[in-house]
């Protein structure tokens, strides 16, 4: 009966980081108009939540799609260490050129986590605050939006 059932595992992680929304393609006035207080030159910070969803066969011996220790370790190495208590604009290569809106942060994290070898990444959901959430499931995006990391591959 359950042969065609699909099971996904969801895990939530947290990091805190600062960012400033400022596009080099816009004038000072336009930046202020578009981004408002998020354009403050000194930046500001958020407690981000990253919800990671993976799928795969449930191993009969362990009852697991993937051992949480392996998933946690990968996310810790690839995302948390790189983003936590950092300035996204200054400390994360992908955001040297690109505005670190949470839309783009979500895409960047998806690109990093899709390399996870032990399960299939289904989607990444980011909460910037408890009132804003963004989701990305790997849909095709134009080249100009791809991360620098993605372009190197």
């Amino acid at each position, binding site marked *: 009966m359950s042969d065609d059932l699909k099971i*996904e595992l969801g895990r939530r992680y947290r990091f805190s980081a600062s960012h400033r929304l400022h596009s080099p393609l816009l004038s000072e006035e336009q930046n202020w108009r578009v981004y408002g207080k998020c354009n403050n030159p000194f930046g500001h910070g958020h407690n981000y939540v990253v919800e990671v969803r993976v799928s795969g066969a*449930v191993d009969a011996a362990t*009852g697991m*799609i993937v051992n*949480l*220790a392996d998933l946690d370790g990968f996310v810790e190495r690839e995302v948390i260490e790189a983003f936590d208590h950092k300035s996204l604009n200054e400390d994360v290569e992908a955001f040297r050129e690109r505005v670190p809106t949470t839309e783009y942060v979500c895409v960047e994290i998806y690109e990093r986590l899709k390399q996870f070898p032990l399960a299939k990444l289904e989607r990444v959901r980011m909460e910037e605050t408890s009132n804003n959430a963004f989701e990305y499931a790997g849909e095709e995006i134009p080249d100009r939006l791809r991360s620098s990391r993605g372009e190197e591959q």
Partner: protein
Amino acid sequence: MVYLTRKIEFSASHLYHNPALSAEENRRIFGKCNNSHGHGHNYALEVTVAGEPDPVTGMVLDLKELKEILEREITERMDHRFLNYEVPELNGQIPTCENIVRVIWNLLEPKIRKGRLHKVRLYETPDLFAECYRNGGSGR
């Protein structure tokens, strides 16, 4: 199509142990979840039913009826139970979130007669959940 979701909570204990593996392997794979006396969680279950609202009642499925199904099939079976020893549907399985959510799907699906079961999401903690749906259905 309208999607209706109802939440319930239940509290239960479990442990992870595969008798086919050595004590060392069990400890290595399952870590503290292998503690032989078990441990517990407050589980939160979200059940989503899809369907068209009835033209007379405006309901996909009477929430009262769904509440009774969840009470009978899930709460009575799992609330304040030791999942390894007291839930026959989990016999021979490690009671991970992945396995419990599938058992819950199989218990609920035949009981839902108005609309159809679309998705079941089971939180073991606020930061860990498993979701079950039919292949081709949306994981959203």
